[in-house]
């Protein structure tokens, strides 16, 4: 019996584990190795340089700028997305007028509309927002401003604003998914709880903070971790949408963009891999930390 079970498990697991080894673990192992060479991408025999690439990283101002931007996004993207998504989801599911528990009028329609950005490819979103942010009369935001005789805003061309524009696009794109996710979570909260709360005289805000949020905590936690990883992983929007691919003047660059630039523009594959290794540790570190910090008593119902 035990023997049969072992065979059964091995039969099911061997193939996926093999795929995982070949397509996930081996590239990682190779990246760790390449990070310690001066490989420039076209040679069959890269030279081993030890930790030289990591030492260089320490004085690479642009890399640290990218790290800083990733860290900013790591905080702002989840906070922004989850706050807005929770607000919308609450309105759509609980926040309706009148007696009983339900969403505002037309909530089914809004759910679909909020989900739209999620359906679009990231590259399309980036191109779309390039047009939205255009600094001349053709821009969706600047066109009306200029028609009123105001100065256009350099959403993507002013280095003080550009990162905020990127953040805005990222949140715009992410919110829809989390609205749907939180809606599903809220739908599974028993209606009786809200009704009991209403009878006790709780207002909408109290219901949100005392009933919804605690019962939704697991879902929020999952959303937080995914958004955090997404923030560390931001690439396409920055690469496609911003000037000089991470500019102007490196004001929107992120680690993934610097990895791409060093590998495929400068042909410094070893150095780029070293950045990748650093990003790897950031991500693992974040995942562990997020789990530790958000660990709390689970409410059973």
């Amino acid at each position, binding site marked *: 019996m035990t023997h049969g079970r072992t065979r059964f498990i091995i039969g099911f697991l061997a193939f996926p584990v093999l795929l995982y080894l070949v397509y996930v673990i081996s590239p990682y192992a190779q990246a760790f190795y390449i990070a310690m060479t001066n490989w420039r991408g076209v040679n069959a025999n890269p030279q081993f340089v030890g930790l030289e690439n990591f030492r260089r990283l320490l004085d690479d101002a642009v890399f640290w700028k990218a790290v800083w931007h990733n860290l900013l996004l790591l905080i702002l993207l989840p906070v922004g997305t989850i706050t807005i998504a929770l607000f919308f989801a609450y309105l759509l599911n609980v926040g309706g007028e009148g007696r009983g528990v339900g969403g505002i009028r037309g909530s089914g329609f809004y759910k679909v509309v909020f989900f739209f950005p999620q359906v679009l490819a990231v590259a399309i979103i980036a191109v779309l927002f390039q047009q939205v942010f255009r600094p001349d009369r053709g821009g969706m935001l600047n066109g009306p401003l200029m028609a009123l005789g105001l100065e256009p805003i350099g959403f993507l*061309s002013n280095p003080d604003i550009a990162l905020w524009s990127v953040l805005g696009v990222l949140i715009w794109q992410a919110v829809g998914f989390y609205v749907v996710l939180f809606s599903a979570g809220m739908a599974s909260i028993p209606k009786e709880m809200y009704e009991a709360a209403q009878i006790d005289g709780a207002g909408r805000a109290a219901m949100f903070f005392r009933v919804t949020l605690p019962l939704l905590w697991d*879902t929020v936690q999952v959303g937080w971790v995914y958004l955090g990883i997404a923030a560390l992983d931001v690439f396409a929007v920055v690469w496609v949408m911003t000037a000089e691919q991470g500019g102007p003047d490196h004001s929107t660059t992120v680690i993934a963009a610097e990895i791409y630039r060093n590998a495929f523009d400068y042909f410094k594959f070893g150095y780029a891999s070293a950045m*990748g290794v650093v990003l790897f540790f950031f991500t693992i570190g974040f995942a562990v930390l997020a789990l530790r910090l958000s660990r709390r008593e689970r409410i059973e119902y």
Partner: protein
Amino acid sequence: MSFFPVNGPRNDSPGRGLSRRQLLRAAVGAGVALPFAAACATPVGGGGGGGSQPAVTGTVSAENPLGVPANEPFEVVIFDGGFGDAYARNIHQPLFRTKHPDVQIKHTATKEIAKTLQPRFASGNPPEFVNNSGDNAMDFGALIQDDQIADLTPLLDAPSWDDPNVKVRDTILPTAIEFGSYDGVFRVLPYANTVWGIWYSTKLFDENGWQVPKTWDEFLALCETIKKSGKCAPFTYAGKHPFYIYETILTLAAKIGGPDVLRNIDNLEDGAWKAEPVLTAATAFAEVGAKYLMQGTIGLDHIQTQTAHNKYQVAMLPNGSWLENEQKDSTPPDFGYAVFPLPSFSDSDAMPYGTLHSRPGEEYFVSAKSRNPRAGMEYMRAMLSKQGAGQFTELVSTLTVVKGAAEGRKLSPGLASASAALQAAGDNTVYFRFRQWYAELHDEVAAATGQLMSGRLTPQAWAERIQRKSEQIKRDDSVKKFQR
């Protein structure tokens, strides 16, 4: 890289949280950028020099001076960008076949050279002939550092396609040989000859009675006149790609201080960027940036600004001679593209009026470790014939490095204007090469110049910042250095 979790969280069973293992797996699975470089192409390792096969050669004769083997196929890889790939299929390949009917040519066109070819170089199986161009071109420094590019000296010394008594060396511009040489060895064939300058519409200028400025004061006065006229903005450039304006600044610097200004920059000399002519030129253009730019310039790309130009929303923009071809679909028929050289800055300029930034571009090379490199060189010899170059000029509106190949060909107005400007400049042409040698320096200059033009950096701070980067590259022993 989407925000979409690969394995959707199980929110439908709120009793179960996320285990640590699941979380870590998600962290890895969500596609951290690390395997990026590794997954695309990794070195094969082993065997000294990297598994290249022995090259095949044929018998050298008067008919076949490069010794192309009669029956061996070879591969031509063309960058399918601004020039398309029709010129290779319809002009150069039929021409090659007239002398080598039995040699099969495998034609590959791609918009992404590095993605297609880099793994092949790394695994020792490169194509014979490569048009290394476009945004995704491979780094020449890296290729040369790893000895991947064939020495083309035999091509230069071979008799030309048209006349057995004239060597190929003597049919092309000397700058082409200089540009294709790395450490004194000719390895890369730059084929198109680009002329930079300030572009305008003869129609717009004629209608308003505006004159091409010959001095910097006249230029500023013209900008002022245009601005006051309210008809259009005086000046713009591809704001999102500050290369276009740093090119202009450096050309003016060379005009003021002579070609050594640019030579010092290329050679990463100490203080090259802080030299007086460079600062003067940067200050001059920072003033243009502050006063005369089309609104929104900083945030627009080359196509957007060029289209604004075609719509008569702006009068002048700096660009290269590919402009007319690039804009051919949105230019009004009577627009009348024309180019003028940078105005003289003062009477004490080191170089006379008419000095141009002109350089051979659009690079081709033969892979040293390919199977049939001789066929690749022979293909270049065909390209460098009068017919091959002349038809190329007509098809894609671009001059080539082949002397006299454009004579008798039908030139569009912009190209005719560029050609005339080049004639007038004679030997007074300048160029810089760090953009190809040190991509990192190029990016830093571009980033800093964008800030200079929008008034966020003073010329002094601009120069200091770039000088720092230049010194950093000089110290970086992982980057191969070049001299000219």
